[in-house]
């Protein structure tokens, strides 16, 4: 069994957590390597937190929030996407690969889509390999 991957998912209380709980309820066993951090709104997630996660050895970080134009706080999800794009640029310029960071827009009933998002991230980690800093920590 491949070495368990370190994937972090920031989920907003409305869209992201709803989808995550739905995925768990539907027993669609999404891999156990995902650690979910819940925030009131994705707008709260800062680029600094994303970069810290990678420095601590995370293989991939993704954020899951409400659908475009359907955000409970109007545009928290749009703010989060800007930060994910910034993170991608930094990861690319450092050679870690921008694909390790991603954002998914999910409605609170999209359990299957949440599982698919996890699978996408696992696929990327397998393609890009583990985070070289992961072994040290």
């Amino acid at each position, binding site marked *: 069994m491949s070495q368990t991957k370190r994937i972090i998912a920031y989920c907003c209380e409305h869209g992201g957590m709803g989808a995550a709980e739905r995925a768990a309820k539907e027993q669609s066993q999404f891999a156990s390597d995902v650690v979910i951090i819940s925030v009131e709104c994705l707008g709260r997630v*800062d*680029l*600094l937190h994303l*970069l*810290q996660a*990678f*420095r601590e050895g995370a293989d991939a970080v993704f954020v899951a929030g409400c659908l475009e134009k359907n955000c409970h706080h109007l545009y928290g999800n749009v703010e989060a996407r800007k930060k994910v794009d910034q993170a991608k640029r*930094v990861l690319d*310029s*450092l*050679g*870690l690969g921008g694909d390790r960071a991603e954002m998914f827009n999910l409605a609170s009933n999209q359990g299957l889509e949440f599982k698919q998002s996890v699978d996408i991230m696992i696929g990327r980690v397998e393609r890009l390999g583990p985070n*070289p*800093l992961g072994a*040290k920590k």
Partner: protein
Amino acid sequence: MIIGEQKPLKEICDILEGHHRILVAGCRSCVAICLAGGEKEVGILSESLRLHSDLAGKGWEIDEVTVERQCENEWVREIAPKIEGKDAVLSIACGVGAQTIQAMYPKVRSLPGLNTSNMGAPIEPGIFMERCGGCGDCVLHLTGGICPIVRCAKSLLNGPCGGSQNGKCEIGKETPCAWEEIYQSLKELGRLDLLEANIPPKDWTPSRSGGPRKIVRPEAVMSETERQLRGER
């Protein structure tokens, strides 16, 4: 305000080559407001540099500090405890900050992490446009409050050149033609007559090309007796 933009991360990493104990210094005034060098950017840049150092095995020690204004000696003096044992300071304030730090700490290399660009204003959140070039001899009263020296690509003083079309400058669609805006502004003010008279060649001595400029406010300069009475602090 003074507007600047961080150097690309790769370039900063190259500039820091050969150094190990680095202090990233931010500033709370202009560069914070244009989202280039405030405490948040210091945090993000430092984290990115630590990430680079870990990945490339540089073994850098990155420390962070942000002062109220990096162009004032009193505030730059505040970073003394943090500068202890550092062999470089990466300033992401405007160029004035980097130079003030170097002047105060001659033993520590002061490196620029930011490209200071111009004096301007946000036309909407996140988009900043140049407004003033500091030419030292303002002509806004002749041009309806729009500066031709920096907002016209050729600093013309007598009306739009032949390349102005649809309100845009010949150098590109992104650049509005300053003289089209001047014409509309004077039309609105009912002062198109200001465009009739020819403005003679400009005296550029008070501008940058006249050499480094010094502005003196005599009433704030301490006289010799005051200096003696006050003593060194």
